[in-house]
């Protein structure tokens, strides 16, 4: 049998259907009698709704129904809940404004949901929506992140004074102040981590139906976590019991965080399907995605690093303003707090850290987790700060990192910001990356580039992240309103093939292959005999879904536990069949043997016996061979590594060209190295995209989204990027049964500062000290033009 087990670069089981156009994405699903919905959205960032007149629209051809915010409110249904509650420094809970799926009185961002039009065709729904007359009284919006806290800023919510959602802190301020008082040098930096749009290639979509005969609702939706949607929508929004609500997440075309959240359209379609008793389909066009998918990042920060005379870090203090947008999206409050503040130790043994985060409301689209979620922001801040510190201390940029790394023998390592790292080897990942990227030869390459009139730079990032989200008790104590375990079921069929059910969801990650590989290794069968099922609340016992690089570390661990139960039971059956003591039965490569004898029976025979229990220990053991396990992790996992970017800038045009990108990551146990490399590649492209290309831009005066299409929002294209050198150097996670740490986010977390540090390295000879992201040709060119000769001479 070809090796299809753990560690093999197996080709993906899911690829055939995707490559032949046989995938089933939500918009591909059609139900009998289906209607189509169009959402009428606000064209204003902030306005009072004086009136909504749907009379004319209701007469338009093909219209089935139109519902407004007033209709929704009159029906007594709930608003979209927030899944995480943060408390401010003073102990008060965050301000949590209402979040109705259709608004009745005020619109608070462009794209806010005003009405839903349901018609026989997509075009008819859209045409009718144009006939709805909404009388808006425009108000001045609060848009810019830092400006939102200013005394004269327009107020987004009356209950959020000064637009403040919460004022949170973490760390012990006393030791930090003491360390700063005795520091030999303090490096200070101001940074903007710009807003991004996740832009999964499949726009969000939903198909809802209601069966009057059974009273059951079904929602097909583009989600990363169907059970979470069922819980939130069923319990908090529409009051439908889980037993009457089925959520299906079929093939989903990418998520990157943006499809975690419970969205208004999901609730509206399900609610309206009950009202009209016909199926309804809604599919966002890309313009709608830009103004209704939760966006990412958007921090404004000031940080200070205290060092002794040798560049040893003594203390760090950080102050951040984080933009929540107009409403609190499902997990928004935890992103700039427990996924950010807790990461500010990074890979460094900084003994004292204090961070303050003010979350603000603005009249912009909601902000929530986007690939990395908080951890890229922390990494960007640290790695920019460390580079600046090295320059000010006149130290080598790698030496200052090496000097401050948490040593490989210091694990478990308790940081001053709550986390306890279990394993890592930062010196080694740096050393390997340094060699692969030929850092030693860089100055010669820089000189050669200079001879061609080009500015060459090299940039480094040594990073860490916390993922494998998450220990339920820990996150519960930090404000999570849910547990974050995972489930797995293994159903061995009578003839020995296996169907495996996971509560995680694959939207590009290849779970149908990697999870099958774990089964293949454990039960000794080829992956062709193993099917992996995910994404349907009627099939899967329960699950928390896929985000935070958790699927393998948490869901894979649940699978290991379920497989343990299978082999334990199977051994008892095998012992009975071989008339042996169960303690003497061994199981390897799909065959049960009795130690010290030549007795053996294959797994398939045991499976058959479990379902045809003629000769069976029936008084001791139930028939059948199917087991379910839930796994709640003991700790987060801590992937980390080193990214090195080399690039050239054309000083005449400001165009930056990537020359080489090296990523050496520690992701723990690798199940499928091909898939792991692919995950890193994709993350790198998104991180590089943030550094050089992407930005969600709002007009500060009107709150209009200026980057609302692919014509304006610069997505990374094939010719913007280079080939990457990617490899892993792994230390095992010490607290889960696989040793896996997770890989989904490392590329996006480590890469962004490596690119910007390389840009600044290239521009250093001209005296350029800072550049904001994205470092577009325009900005680079401006930076070059405004660099003063005096600075360059320093």
């Amino acid at each position: 049998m070809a090796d299809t087990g753990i560690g093999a670069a197996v080709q993906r089981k899911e690829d055939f259907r995707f490559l032949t156009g046989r995938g089933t994405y939500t918009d591909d699903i059609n139900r009998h009698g289906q209607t189509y919905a169009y959402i009428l959205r606000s064209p204003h960032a902030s306005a009072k709704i004086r009136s909504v007149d749907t009379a004319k629209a209701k007469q338009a051809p093909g219209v089935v129904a139109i519902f407004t915010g007033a209709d929704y409110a009159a029906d007594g249904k709930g608003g979209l809940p927030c899944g995480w509650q943060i408390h401010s420094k003073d102990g008060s809970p965050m301000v949590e404004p209402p979040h109705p799926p259709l608004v009745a009185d005020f619109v608070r961002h462009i794209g806010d949901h005003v009405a839903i039009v349901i018609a026989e065709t997509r075009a008819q729904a859209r045409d009718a929506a144009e006939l709805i007359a909404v009388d808006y009284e425009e108000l001045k919006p609060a848009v810019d992140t830092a400006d939102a806290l200013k005394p004269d800023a327009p107020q987004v919510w009356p209950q959020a004074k000064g637009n403040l959602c919460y004022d949170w802190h973490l760390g012990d301020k006393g030791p930090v102040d003491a360390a700063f008082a005795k520091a030999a040098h303090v490096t200070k930096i101001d940074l903007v981590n710009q807003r991004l749009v996740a832009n999964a290639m499949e726009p969000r979509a939903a198909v809802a139906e209601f069966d009057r005969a059974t009273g059951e609702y079904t929602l097909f939706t583009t989600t990363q976590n169907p059970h979470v949607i069922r819980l939130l929508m069923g319990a908090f929004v529409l009051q439908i019991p889980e037993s009457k609500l089925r959520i299906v997440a079929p093939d989903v075309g990418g998520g990157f965080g943006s499809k975690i959240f419970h969205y208004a359209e999901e609730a509206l379609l399900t609610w309206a399907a009950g009202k009209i008793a016909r199926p309804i389909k809604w599919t966002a066009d890309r313009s709608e995605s830009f103004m209704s998918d939760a966006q990412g990042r958007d921090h404004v920060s000031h940080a200070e690093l205290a060092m002794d005379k040798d560049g040893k870090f003594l203390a760090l203090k950080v102050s951040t303003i984080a933009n929540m947008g107009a409403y609190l999206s499902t997990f928004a409050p935890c992103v700039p707090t427990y996924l950010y503040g807790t990461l500010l130790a990074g890979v460094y043994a900084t003994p004292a850290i204090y961070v303050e985060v003010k979350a603000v409301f603005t009249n912009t689209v909601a902000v929530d987790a986007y690939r990395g979620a908080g951890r890229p922001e922390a990494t960007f801040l640290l790695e920019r700060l460390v580079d600046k510190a090295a320059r000010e201390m006149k130290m080598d940029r790698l030496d200052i990192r090496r000097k401050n790394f948490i040593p490989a023998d210091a694990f478990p390592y308790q940081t001053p910001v709550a986390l306890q790292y279990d394993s890592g080897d930062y010196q080694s990942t740096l050393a390997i990356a340094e060699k692969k990227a030929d850092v030693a030869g860089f100055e010669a390459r820089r000189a050669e580039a200079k001879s061609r009139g080009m500015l060459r730079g090299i940039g480094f990032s040594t990073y860490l992240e916390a993922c494998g989200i998450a220990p339920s008790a820990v996150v519960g104590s930090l404000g999570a309103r849910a547990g974050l375990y995972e489930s797995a079921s293994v159903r061995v069929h009578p003839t020995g093939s296996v169907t495996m059910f996971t509560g995680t969801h694959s939207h590009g990650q290849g779970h149908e292959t990697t999870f099958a590989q774990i089964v293949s290794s454990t039960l000794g069968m080829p992956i062709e005999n193993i099917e992996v099922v995910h994404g349907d609340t009627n099939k899967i016992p329960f699950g928390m879904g896929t985000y935070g690089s958790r699927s393998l570390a948490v869901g894979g661990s649940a699978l290991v536990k379920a497989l343990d139960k299978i082999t334990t039971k199977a051994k008892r059956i095998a012992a009975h069949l071989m008339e042996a003591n169960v303690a003497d039965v061994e199981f390897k490569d799909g065959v049960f043997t009795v130690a010290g004898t030549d007795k053996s029976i294959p797994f398939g025979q045991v499976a058959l016996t479990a379902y045809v229990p003629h000769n069976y220990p029936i008084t001791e053991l139930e028939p059948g061979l199917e087991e379910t396990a839930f796994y709640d992790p003991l700790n987060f996992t801590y992937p980390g590594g080193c990214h090195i970017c080399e690039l050239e800038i054309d000083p005449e045009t400001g165009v930056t060209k990537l020359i080489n990108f090296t990523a050496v990551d520690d992701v723990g146990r690798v199940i499928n190295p091909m898939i792991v490399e692919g995950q890193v590649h994709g993350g790198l492209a998104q991180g590089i995209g943030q550094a050089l290309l992407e930005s969600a831009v709002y007009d500060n005066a009107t709150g209009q989204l200026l980057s609302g299409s692919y014509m304006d929002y610069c997505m990374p294209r094939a010719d913007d990027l280079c080939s990457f050198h990617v490899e892993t150097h792994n230390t095992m996670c010490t607290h889960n049964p696989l040793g896996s740490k997770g890989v989904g986010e490392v590329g996006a977390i480590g890469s962004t500062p490596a690119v910007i540090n390389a840009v600044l390295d290239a521009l250093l000879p001209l005296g350029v000290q800072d550049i904001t992201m994205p470092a577009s040709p325009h900005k680079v060119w401006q930076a070059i033009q405004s660099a003063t000769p005096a600075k360059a001479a320093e």
Partner: protein
Amino acid sequence: MPSVAMTVNGKAVTGNVEGRTLLVQFLREQLGLTGTHVGCDTSQCGACVVHVDGKSVKSCTLLAVQANGAAVTTIEGLAPNGALHPMQAAFREHHGLQCGFCTPGMVMSAVDLASRNGDPSEQEVREWLEGNICRCTGYHNIVKAVQAGARAMRS
């Protein structure tokens, strides 16, 4: 409503469409060929690429009536049932897809490139794919797959 007639994946098809109906809407909604995807509304992403008379075309940028009389090939028609075209096989071999949403357009575009240039360089592939956006792969493995697929198509 205007009627249209064309050959799609080797089969003659007809239909009545609105004047504003896009070719991609006709393919997906009337013919049920849902392998061709829609990822944007500005002709940027290329998820909808099909072949019209042998050339790659963004089917969101063509009205169905403009394809009247044309021979259209979609991802479903690239290889007979149960088989993979060499370009599809190369994408699987080189892990040139993750979520699969951009994949049909990416493959159809790559086949057109390979028919024009049997041995494209990395740079040629990257420039050719400028009109196809992928958010998952960082293009690294797509580029490898297209080069390998082009070589396989030649042999």
